[in-house]
């Protein structure tokens, strides 16, 4: 007769399994120990974020970075040589708006200098990476049938993004004079957006919101509502895909992962 009951066997089995599990979790000879959470294999060391602070200077540097995003985009658009024929007038508008953004960038960087900060003199790297570079790649695709129109669509989206950014930082800036300065430029960006909206959807039908009867999608409107929106901006550009669709990008105003912090520098 066995000296162990079935219950004893199960109990011993459980203790043994737990022991094996604990041994597996323990330090092992010859195996490099990760500094991260215990896991199988070795993970790279985590790099902590620097202790950044969202100050008025950081917000203004971010605004300056958007101005350079716009300048770079208009320069790229003008450089494409697509503003000819029916789009010649759009080329003149693009030059005027680019020059306005250069003036805005100077004004914002002047404020930053007055506050003791370092001016920001290039496009926002994060927005370049996730919005502008992919959009320009789609626009300049060899299969794209209407790059001139798409350039205006992108510019319109960037102007809306800039207008929203300035409007949004009003609640974040601590200084009233800075809020006023920001909105002085913000209203310029809103005006830019309205001009480009009229270029895309001209005449009185393009002033207030409307819906395309064929696609059920909203048309571009110069005046999108009673209050300045702070919503994501959808941009559809580039060639028609095999399934008949076109690529869309969703633009959002700069957030904590795309602010021009003090330690962010131009390449």
């Amino acid at each position, binding site marked *: 007769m066995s000296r162990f009951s079935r219950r004893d066997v199960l109990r011993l089995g459980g203790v043994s399994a737990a022991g094996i599990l604990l041994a597996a979790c323990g330090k092992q000879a010859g195996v490099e120990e990760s500094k991260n959470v215990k896991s199988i294999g070795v993970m790279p060391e985590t790099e902590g*974020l620097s*202790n*950044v*602070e*969202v*100050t008025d200077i950081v*917000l203004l540097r971010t605004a300056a970075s958007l101005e350079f995003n716009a300048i770079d985009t208009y320069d790229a658009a003008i450089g494409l040589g697509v503003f000819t024929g029916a789009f010649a007038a759009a080329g*003149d*508008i693009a030059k*005027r708006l680019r020059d*306005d953004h250069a003036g805005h960038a100077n004004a914002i960087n002047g404020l930053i200098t007055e506050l003791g900060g370092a001016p920001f003199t290039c496009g926002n790297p994060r927005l370049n990476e996730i919005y502008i570079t992919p959009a320009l790649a789609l626009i300049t695709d060899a299969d794209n049938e209407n790059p001139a129109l798409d350039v205006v669509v992108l510019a319109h989206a960037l102007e809306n993004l800039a*207008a929203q950014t*300035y*409007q949004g930082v*009003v*609640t*974040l*800036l*601590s200084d*009233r*004079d800075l*809020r*006023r300065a920001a*909105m*002085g430029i*913000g*209203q*310029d960006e*809103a*005006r*830019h*957006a*309205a*001009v480009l909206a*009229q270029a895309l959807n001209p*005449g*009185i*039908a393009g*002033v*207030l919101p409307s819906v395309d009867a064929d696609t059920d999608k909203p048309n571009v409107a*110069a*005046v*999108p*509502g*009673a*209050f*300045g929106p*702070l919503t994501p901006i959808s941009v559809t550009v580039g060639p028609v895909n095999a399934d008949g669709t076109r690529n869309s990008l969703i633009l959002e105003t700069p957030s*904590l992962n795309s602010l021009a912090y003090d330690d962010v520098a131009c390449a």
Partner: protein
Amino acid sequence: MTLTASVTPPTKADRELLAFANSAEFAARDLYAVAASLAVFNDDERAMLVGFHDHHRAAGQSLAGIVGALATNVRSDAVYNAFRGRLQGTDKNAVLDALRELENTLASTHLSLVGELEGSEGAALVASILNIEARQSVALAILTGRGLDDALTNSAVALSPVVGS
């Protein structure tokens, strides 16, 4: 990471400034009602004017919401009377020009307020109204065949807030 301070409510002085904006917006609402009633405009143009009328009404109502008991909810007669005389006759562009000047005047006034308001809640609301009035000014400039400078530049003088005691 250190974030900026949270949204701050309007102070008593803010509420008086916002009450002024409330009355200015209702004056604009009534001026658009006058314009929309003119026979010179066709249905499409009237629909746009009614749309802008509704935007000013919404702005006035939102300002009233943040002002509370200090909101008069009546139009500023000073603003109304300054533009009312130009909203008549058969010259469509002259009427639209007057409305463009109204939009630019309100935009300049709101910009001035953004620089005076202490609480960020009121400043944010005024900023969102300002951006729309700038756009409405652009639309009116383009529809009257004006050039890019007229659409993009606002040289209107801000109204001086008339605040209660």
